[in-house]
């Protein structure tokens, strides 16, 4: 089970790094803020944060493990905060409430991650035995989940809008499909966060228990495939989506 989990996290890490680097490089060519937000988000959270948080506690050197863990938590907070701001900037650019929500989510994640790291520095991997660390971890996971839920809802909403546009000859089926995959990826991350938070809340260990391990691993592996289809779509996939432009949007 652990080997499968490491393999899935590894695949997700590599794919996120590839996507993150591509988007950041594109930012330097175009100076478009959404590319920078999304690229840095993928580099910070799935490419660095998640693997460091998994690897840190497994290291024999406790100091090095703590350093990896703290760096990983920082990456997760930074990455998910950037996902929040990506949503605000791209989907709600004219809403001050969206930016306030993104800021609130980011602050909440930073504060709870601080408590989680503080507990880890004091007690090591067993720190979730502390009620304060457990509560902070649950809040952190739920805030993280709410960021991905926002992502999923915006994606789903835009799938509906694109379907309506298709009736009048507007909208690209490839972009509509990208919104759909984006919504699915966000929903799976929410599911993973809920399973992990439930495990913690019921006294389990999300690093060793089967349910959270399986959920995070499978979501990581599945989302790796979605990352490819969203950000680096193979030519055959794009051809398949545009095989009948008039009807393709109805199908997504």
């Amino acid at each position: 089970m652990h080997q499968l989990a490491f393999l899935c996290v590894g695949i997700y890490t590599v794919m996120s790094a590839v996507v993150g680097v591509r988007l950041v490089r594109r930012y330097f060519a175009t100076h478009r803020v959404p590319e920078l937000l999304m690229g840095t988000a993928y580099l910070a959270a799935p490419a660095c944060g998640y693997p460091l948080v998994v690897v840190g506690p497994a290291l024999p050197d406790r100091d090095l493990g703590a350093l990896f863990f703290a760096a990983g938590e920082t990456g997760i907070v930074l990455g998910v905060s950037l996902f929040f701001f990506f949503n605000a900037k791209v989907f709600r650019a004219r809403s001050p409430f969206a930016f306030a929500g993104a800021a609130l989510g980011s602050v909440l994640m930073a504060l709870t991650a601080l408590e989680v790291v503080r507990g880890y520095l004091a007690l090591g991997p067993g720190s979730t035995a502390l009620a304060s660390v457990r509560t902070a971890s649950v809040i952190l996971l739920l805030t993280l989940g709410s960021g991905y839920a926002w992502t999923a809802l915006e994606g789903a909403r835009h799938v509906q809008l694109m379907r309506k546009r298709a009736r009048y000859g507007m909208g690209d089926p490839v972009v509509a499909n990208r919104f759909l995959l984006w919504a699915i990826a966000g929903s799976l991350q929410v599911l993973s966060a809920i399973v992990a938070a439930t495990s913690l809340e019921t006294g389990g260990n999300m690093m060793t228990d089967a349910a959270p391990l399986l959920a995070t691993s499978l979501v990581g592996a599945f989302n790796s495939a979605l990352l490819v289809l969203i950000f680096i779509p193979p030519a055959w996939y794009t051809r398949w989506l545009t095989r009948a432009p008039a009807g393709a949007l109805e199908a997504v």
Partner: protein
Amino acid sequence: MAGSAAFEAVCSELAGFPNMDRWTARGTLQLALMDAGLEASNASAEQLMIVVDRLLPRQLQSHAGADVNAICTRLRDVLSLLPASKGDSPEAVFARMGS
């Protein structure tokens, strides 16, 4: 909430016709946009041109005395003078992401 430059331009023009005021014009155009799956905040001139051609006439018919053809012709003229949209709509961002 403010609309895109194209949306605001069409609203201003529409509001100047008989039996129309600012709020009626906005509401009428908003209804047409909703039918088309568009949002006022990022609707482009190209998209609004399609709305004016295919959806707005139906909305305007409910306004007694409105000369639908004259209104739509004038709105098309206004839209044709607008520069191409450079905004970062969600559709534009997601189109770039996978290219």
